[in-house]
């Protein structure tokens, strides 16, 4: 779920060179409007930005509902951990395919406005099905709900990006992306820390804890999705109005997916894919299972466990822009990736082999997770030509979702049969694989002239030469 924002760096890069088809300045409206209603005015765009940020809030809030209510879900529905993790797997399955087509559907089939509303509807309907499944104690219905939710969730993030590019291209785009990312993290964090309380309140209301209370609290969580759907509708209206007033075009995700490009992907790109899959499968499924782990191994209270489980997201919100700036300034992406992977390995080993306070390990995990995102995703742009970027990112996300779905199921089964130590060792093994791939990437890149691991200064110099050559 949280991976999609990293693509924004790509969109952000493109945002500067594409010329908007209707410059707001030369098409000033005929009659004066208050600034807040004038699509050309910053104040109006700030209002729009608010709606954009909350567009994704619902889906981020509800994505981690199972993790936030892990004990309750397991107990009320009488599930084992493998079945519980299926809820995450079912979210990922549709995205194995949809990552390729999200942009295409937005551009060619629905258009950004209708597309956003449709994806928001999927998210809402998915969450309602999910909650209904819990209300009726029908587990298969909950899985269906997560599947429908998954169809909407990831594509909605693409739509959110497209809106951002459309409204803020060449202006405050990076800031906007940063704000949206922080908002996504906020959604996850609030969910982690509030759902337990919501559940206990609903349980008081219906008399006793049980699947009715669970369904009720998930329905309440669904209100955030409705809220996001509202944002989608308002955005659609405002975007259309702006289009009418400013005569601009509907926004495009601008991704061209050419599956035949895959055979031309260079070897370093495959290593990047491998790092991506092996790394993220040790993060998201772990967070999904984290709550009970902290309760059982470290004797945390449920509230404390939820808090420490959400620290990764909390840290990521401010750390992502800072680390992103740092990586941009220094370059040497491969070294940063190796550092991030090694730090994550250290964090997982702490959780596996020590009783040290998990706040340490989880904070380290939060920082290294943010660092990896900043260093890894932009590397794709260095190794493939620009016209293949859409395909490369689509492919990367697709196999990442495939990995997440498979590993989520495997993680549940390992926990059920072998316990937390072996599960953590399994995650360590995944990270070790990512470490091997990143070490290999370093040497392969070195052999190929070190383009990925250049310092920012060398990179800038090279770019300057290239442009002067072109002139």
């Amino acid at each position, binding site marked *: 779920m949280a991976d999609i924002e990293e693509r924004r760096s790509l969109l952000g890069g493109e945002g500067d060179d594409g010329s908007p088809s209707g410059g707001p300045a030369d098409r000033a409206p005929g009659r004066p409007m208050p600034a807040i209603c004038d699509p050309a005015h910053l104040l109006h765009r700030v209002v729009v930005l608010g709606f954009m940020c909350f567009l994704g809030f619902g889906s981020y809030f509800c994505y981690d509902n199972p993790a936030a209510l892990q004990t309750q879900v397991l107990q009320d529905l009488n599930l084992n951990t493998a079945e519980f993790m299926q809820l995450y797997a079912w979210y990922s399955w549709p995205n194995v395919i949809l990552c390729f087509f999200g942009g295409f559907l937005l551009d060619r089939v629905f258009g950004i406005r209708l597309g956003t509303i449709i994806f928001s509807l999927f998210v809402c309907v998915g969450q309602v099905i999910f909650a209904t499944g819990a209300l009726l104690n029908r587990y298969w219905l909950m899985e269906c709900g997560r599947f429908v939710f998954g169809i909407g969730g990831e594509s909605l993030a693409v739509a959110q990006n497209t809106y951002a590019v459309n409204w803020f291209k060449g202006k405050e785009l990076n800031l906007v992306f940063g704000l949206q990312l922080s908002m996504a993290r906020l959604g996850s964090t609030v969910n982690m820390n509030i759902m337990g309380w919501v559940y206990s309140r609903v349980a008081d209301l219906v008399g006793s804890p049980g699947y009715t209370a669970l369904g009720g609290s998930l329905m309440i969580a669904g209100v955030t999705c409705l809220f996001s759907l509202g944002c989608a509708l308002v955005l659609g209206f405002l975007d259309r109005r702006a289009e009418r007033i400013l005569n601009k075009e509907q926004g495009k995700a601008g991704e061209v997916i050419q599956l035949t490009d895959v055979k031309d992907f260079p070897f370093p790109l495959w290593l990047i894919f491998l790092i991506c899959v092996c790394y993220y499968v040790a993060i998201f499924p772990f967070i999904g299972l984290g709550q009970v782990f902290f309760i059982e191994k470290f004797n945390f209270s449920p509230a404390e466990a939820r808090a420490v489980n959400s620290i990764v997201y909390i840290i990521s919100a401010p750390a992502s822009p800072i680390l992103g700036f740092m990586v941009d300034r220094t370059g040497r992406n491969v070294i940063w990736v190796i550092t991030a992977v090694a730090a994550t390995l250290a964090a997982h080993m702490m959780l596996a082999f020590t*009783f040290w306070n998990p706040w340490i390990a989880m904070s380290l995990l939060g920082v290294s997770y943010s660092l990896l995102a900043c260093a890894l995703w932009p590397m794709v742009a260095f190794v493939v030509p620009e016209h293949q970027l859409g395909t490369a990112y689509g492919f990367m996300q697709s196999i990442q979702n495939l990995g997440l779905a498979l590993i989520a199921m495997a993680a549940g089964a390992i926990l059920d049969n072998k316990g937390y130590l072996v599960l953590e060792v399994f995650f360590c093994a995944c990270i070790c694989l990512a470490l091997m791939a990143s070490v*290999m990437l370093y040497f392969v890149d070195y052999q190929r002239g070190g383009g990925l691991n250049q310092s920012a200064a060398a990179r800038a110099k090279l770019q300057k030469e290239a442009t002067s050559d072109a002139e």
Partner: protein
Amino acid sequence: MAAVLRSGFWALVVLVSTSSQSSFERQLSVQLNPGWTTTSPPPGGDLLHVRAFGDNDTLHYLFCSQGAPTLLLIHTNSSSSTVQVDWPLFLARNTSGSLKVEPESSILHSTAVVFSRLLEYDDVNDTADPTSDLFPPYELQNFTWSRLNLTGDSARLCGASSSSSGVLCLQLSVFKTDGRGQTWPRLLHTANSSQLEVWIDGLLPRATRSRFLLELQAVGGAYPLSRVEVHRSIDDEYTPSIFKASHWVSAANGSSDVRSFVQWKPVAYRRSDPALEEATPCSHSEPRWQSGETTAAASGLVQAFDSDLDTFGLNVSFGLAGEPFYNSTKFLSWTVLVGVGSPPVDSFSPLVVAIMAVGLGTPVVLLLLGGLWVCLSKKAADSTTAYEPIN
């Protein structure tokens, strides 16, 4: 970073070498009702005697349902010590000394564990606090016990209360060598220990929110089991999600020398073939000194053997607040290890060690090889540039 990884790798190598312990083997000889000559079984319950011979010592396991079920473990320093039972006196259950070890001087240590009572309470508010609303306890000495059912090196004993349906069973397993139980909690055992699994099956609860406690008494001779140490362990591979082990041992007499122990993991299971979600945590009360006379009155074996009745008792309570009640499955199973020496301690399995060693080792090797290759190619590049013609 390489140094860190390498040190981690060596730590694992050290772990591998220490985890492979030398295994020690005992010969077992099982005898039901030793010295009982009549063909009909002894009235009041069987007496099982298992001798476990070592190279220069013998462990005598005596398991008996005369009164409350009791396991008596006698450690002798002779490989030829024997147990003598004076059956008329033993069955009369009023004098000490009807069960003797010959030669008496060979006795190093003895410990008896008595399963004396099963307590039930109504946990109305789901607090799992057993001080409130206790029902009249089940006195296990008043249960009707079946004959001992012997299969291999294990024996099963089941008892029923006259006032309720359902059974309480105990299964004793004695071991030749090191190993691990087949079913959860898969306790690690040595040749110096025996395992007792206790389970309640189908016993009708007297309230819908009933929870149970089991009362254990340990009669420990010169070294009574007077304290419970709770050890934390990072290793939950064999007992998923349980990171603790409780060791009921004698108070440290200035030294760390532990003569005997009762060990368990704080978990019970709500099904006979359990999955992880049917695990239910347990807690125990602090051991309290008790009058040995009541224990001797309850247990025929304690009465017959022990004259020094220093007894400590504790309760193990099944289920914590918020956990499902007994009523949900009407089954509870719990396992303890009783043995001499120090309690066995879990170590990492070869699987874990191997994965970590390969996982950490391969990137280090890659890094070294890659570094070497970079150095060589740099040198080669340097040498080619050195001999390059000027133009």
